[in-house]
């Protein structure tokens, strides 16, 4: 069942009304739980899919229970290595094709939602190890993992934050105006996905078709080729933005109708003045997750063991953390390129800031940041860099190369 589909919206309206009329917390939990498992069932095609999903999520719960009782670093490390290895194998990452025989890739397991399950597993395991989880139960955990409002594509919520709403599940929107606002946001989400994102995608696809054909490119004037290339360059990121932010509008507003408070995932990303800021505005819950569970431990380890080198190695932490984040987005080589560009963008931002502080001091940096011309230039530069990163996965790398080759050979 697609989140933007009519079935999803109808189910949302019907079940949220039932939720509102439900007499007690237990009833509301059972109702929402039914929605969660019912929704997941529409994505799991067969028994082997269910078994794989049960094993993957069940192992996460078992590990969390063990880590709460025996908070050993070796146990956490063992579990994380096992988890990541199984994830990479099941998702059949492209680089495995260089290492494993072709027969290995013939059996495919449906893995919708697994990338987000992975994030939640790691969060629960690390927080359980650090005694940050108070009420861990299988019932809570399964509903947290299969939460219909975060299962497919986030937002990534912490187990503790989910439990705050879940254990006292009750309508949080009680006035007509706030309920209407939530319905309106769902409607805005539908328009963003079906209309705006749809138009952007069809523009991208039609231009891609032209630019992939050498004969068609030769017939276009030089000015039109540049226009088409620009349309292709900007329409895909716009499609991604409207599609994803529309989805987030729908699930965040939908969750509020069921008494759940989901974290916001977008905060005007087009206004970011550098790549570090971009990841606090775009897919924020992912940016924060990377900061907390990859960047923080890596930087803390460096700063603890080599305090004098920490400052100069910070850019390396940014690079590694966001390179891995890029890789997580997909299993093909496109995402290696996407990860590399993001890693370079963030590391470059940090290096530039360090350079400015060294040269001008903190006060000088403040003046630099307040300069309106530099501010606008930084926003434009960041926006274009972001579009470039997304260009990596708009098509496969071979097709991107073909488009660029066609345009360049026609121009010369």
């Amino acid at each position, binding site marked *: 069942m697609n989140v933007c589909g009519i079935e999803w919206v109808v189910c949302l309206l019907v079940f949220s009304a039932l939720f509102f009329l439900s007499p007690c917390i237990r009833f509301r939990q059972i109702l929402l739980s039914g929605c969660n498992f019912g929704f997941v069932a529409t994505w799991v095609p067969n028994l082997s899919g269910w078994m794989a999903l049960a094993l993957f999520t069940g192992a996460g719960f078992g590990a969390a229970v063990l880590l709460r009782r025996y908070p050993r670093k070796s146990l956490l490390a063992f579990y994380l290595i096992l988890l990541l290895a199984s994830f990479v194998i099941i998702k059949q990452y492209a680089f495995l094709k260089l290492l494993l025989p072709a027969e290995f890739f013939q059996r495919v397991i449906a893995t919708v939602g697994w990338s987000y399950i992975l994030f939640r597993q790691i969060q629960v395991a690390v*927080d359980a190890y650090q005694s940050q989880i108070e009420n861990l139960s299988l019932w809570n955990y399964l509903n947290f993992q299969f939460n219909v409002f975060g299962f497919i594509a986030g937002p990534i919520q912490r187990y503790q934050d989910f439990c705050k709403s879940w254990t006292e599940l009750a309508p949080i929107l009680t006035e007509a105006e706030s309920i209407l606002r939530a319905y309106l946001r769902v409607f805005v989400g539908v328009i963003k996905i079906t209309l705006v994102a749809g138009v952007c995608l069809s523009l991208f696809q039609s231009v891609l078709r032209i630019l992939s054909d050498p004969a068609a490119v030769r017939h276009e004037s030089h000015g039109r080729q540049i226009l088409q290339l620009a349309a292709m360059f900007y329409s895909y990121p716009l499609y991604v933005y409207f599609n994803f932010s529309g989805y987030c509008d729908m699930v965040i507003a939908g969750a509020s109708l069921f008494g759940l408070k989901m974290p916001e995932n977008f905060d005007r990303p087009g206004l970011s003045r550098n790549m*570090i800021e971009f990841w606090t505005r775009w897919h924020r819950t992912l940016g924060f997750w990377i900061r907390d569970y990859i960047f*923080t431990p890596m930087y*803390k380890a460096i*700063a603890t063991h080599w305090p004098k080198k920490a400052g100069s190695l910070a850019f390396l932490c940014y690079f590694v953390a966001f390179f891995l984040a890029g890789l997580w987005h997909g299993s093909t080589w496109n995402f290696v390129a996407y990860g590399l560009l993001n890693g370079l963008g963030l590391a470059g931002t940090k290096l530039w800031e360090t350079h400015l502080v060294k040269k001008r001091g903190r006060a000088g940096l403040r003046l630099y940041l307040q300069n309106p011309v530099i501010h606008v230039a930084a926003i434009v530069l960041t926006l274009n860099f972001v579009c470039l990163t997304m260009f990596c996965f708009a098509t496969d790398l071979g097709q991107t190369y073909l488009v660029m080759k066609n345009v360049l050979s026609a121009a010369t």
Partner: protein
Amino acid sequence: MKAPTDEVQEVFRNVFGDETIVLTDDMTAADVPGWDSLGHLNLIIALEKRFKIKFATAEIAKLKEDNQNAGTLLALIARKLR
């Protein structure tokens, strides 16, 4: 137990290289130049060293949320020193 505000203030001054910082409960990251993600981590590491305490990943993340301020940090340190 109350958090040793003077000592925490000294850590702030060392980490952010600004001797004029006066720590108040309602102070936020926006009030201190350099208190970004990396500055926050440097502060946490310095506080851990100074008070011989450990902050969990979830606690460090929580302190970065929008409604948090120096008062929340002081309260957390006080709880850990208890």
